[in-house]
């Protein structure tokens, strides 16, 4: 995060592009990042692994994560890790390994959908504010100030408590608030792009405001939106985990945050049931770090001065 902050003072080295070639260029430079940056490559590999686990969860997980496992009618509670239960069982006889595998699903759902909305809303608000300027800019930037003034975790808790515990309400809360960083950065970027020759050329040739904004300026700020999007994936997964840990999560969904809460309230800490609460914590860390690593790669693409630092 800090690198983004310090980087915002630098001028991103975004070459001017027009029209549809931007996506192709983005794809090409992404491949380029992966070839050069081992961290970014590690991030992508971690995400690919999580995606595979999420898709194949029913195949990989030996048990239903909600099922209470019994043997001859007796509950198999608090089993130590062994051949049948790779990570043991919980205090209500559920298989921890299966929960861990299924936990990849909500993490990905929340992570990617929240990141998508955060980047989308932030980009659109930043574009409109930066391009039109004047009163529109003032209003939108005051709106951003307000979003910066609302305490994030308390806001999510209150909203989820009112609207009901569901991961989509967590996503909604994030979409309503976290666009703020992206919007500010995109806006300042649009301000510098607005006066460039290719935009003026488009204006002279009679292109409308919206056309210029979305066809000429937007492709140029796409990498920056992607950077904030990748970072938002991590924040979203962390937020969902926090909300679940506080007990406001969807009770029907087994997420890594839910597992940690379950372990915490079941005294797993005092009993030293490490196999219960350490794996989900590590999974969250890996997922969030993967986002940071990919973000770092994008940053080096955007701010070449940082390269080698």
């Amino acid at each position, binding site marked *: 995060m*800090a690198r983004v902050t310090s980087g915002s003072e630098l001028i991103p080295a975004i070459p001017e592009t027009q029209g549809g070639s931007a996506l192709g260029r983005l794809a090409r430079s992404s491949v380029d990042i992966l070839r050069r940056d081992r961290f970014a490559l590690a991030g992508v590999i971690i995400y690919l692994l999580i995606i595979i686990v999420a898709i194949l969860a029913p195949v990989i997980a030996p048990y239903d994560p909600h099922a209470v496992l019994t043997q001859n009618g007796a509950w198999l509670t608090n089993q130590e890790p062994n051949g049948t239960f790779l990570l043991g069982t919980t205090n209500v006889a559920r298989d921890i390994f299966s929960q861990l595998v299924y936990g990849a699903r909500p993490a990905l759902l929340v992570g990617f959908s929240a990141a998508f909305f955060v980047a989308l809303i932030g980009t659109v608000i930043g574009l409109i504010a930066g391009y039109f300027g004047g009163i529109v800019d003032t209003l939108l930037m005051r709106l951003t100030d307000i979003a910066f003034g609302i305490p994030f975790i308390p806001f999510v808790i209150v909203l989820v408590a009112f609207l009901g515990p569901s991961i989509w309400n967590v996503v909604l809360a994030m979409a309503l608030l976290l666009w703020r960083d992206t919007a500010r950065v995109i806006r300042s970027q649009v301000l510098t792009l607005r006066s460039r020759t290719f935009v003026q050329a488009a204006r002279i040739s009679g292109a409308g405001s919206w056309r210029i904004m979305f066809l000429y300026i937007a492709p140029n700020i796409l990498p920056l939106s992607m950077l904030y999007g990748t970072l938002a994936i991590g924040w979203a997964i962390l937020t969902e985990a926090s909300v679940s840990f506080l007990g406001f999560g969807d009770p029907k969904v087994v997420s890594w945050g839910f597992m940690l809460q379950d372990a915490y309230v079941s005294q797993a800490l005092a009993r030293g049931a490490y196999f219960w609460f350490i794996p989900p914590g590590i999974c969250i860390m890996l997922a969030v770090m993967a986002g940071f690593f990919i973000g770092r790669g994008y940053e080096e693409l955007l701010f070449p001065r940082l390269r080698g630092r």
Partner: protein
Amino acid sequence: MLRAKLIYVLGRFAQMIGVLWVIVTILFLIFRLMPGNPLVAFIDPTFTEEQQQAITHQFGLDKPLYVQYVLYIKNLATGDLGTSFFQKQPVLSLLMDVFPNTIVLTLVSLIFAYAIGIVGGSILAWRRGTAVEGVGIVGALMTRAAPDFFVGMLVLTLFSFKLGWFPSSGVSSPGTIYDSYWRQLIAPDFWKHLFLPALTMAIYLQGLPLLLMRSNMLEVLDEDFVVMSRMKGLPEWRIMLNHAARNAMLPVVTALALGVGYAVSGNVVIEMVFSWPGIGRMLVKAVQAKDYPLAQGAFFLIAIVIVFMNFVSDILYSFLDPRVSSSRKEVG
């Protein structure tokens, strides 16, 4: 020049009040327009229809929404945050009972975190390109990626349950009563309770100043006055300390101001892990119990801290960096 500064500060202050007003309005709308009767937790199912209406009347919930809104703003302006549904006490005094705990926890961990971050960041910049730097950066990213409550659980398991060095919850041992908050603050028992939550928070918070300090140092080290000092043959440690670090610290100081606000909002989770009786824990408990006046008050108080610290950080920044008049720097 001074006049311009004053106008800027006043304008920024007015903006802060405006932002607070909008937040208060949003808060009002959330709590009034959401599905469900806000008194649902308060009204016993055995109450008769008349009793229910009497209570609704007592809370002013039968009045039109705009009348409720005007009343609400008026009460807030005079510091009246209502009465808790369950504890039957003024919300403000309940909040003020626990607010100092949150402030102490936040400040102690921030000071820890920024001390570690500033020193560590300088070292990483100094040792640029070495294994120390690589390990340091990955370590900082790891602490930023670890959920704070997970770190808290690890810390609890190790220091409290396994080694038994520190208590696992609360602010004081059972049965301890202090005659004043000051007495509590200087009691060794209090610091023993504070240690683990503060450590957990500091571990989470130090990543930002560390990475910020490092990249600022790297910028500064390229500047002419550092090159000049090198040419003068000053010892490396003096260049680092007297020239580079001093200049690189300015943005970190503004980040610290912002950090106070975000930490007060973010330590909700840590307060829950360590059962630390602070404002965040009060908020969570109030929301769980559907104690709306208390939840609303706690939310409002946290928002005030954030908005105020955003204001302070902008002002600080404008004074520390003469190039800035109204644009600002943000910290994620």
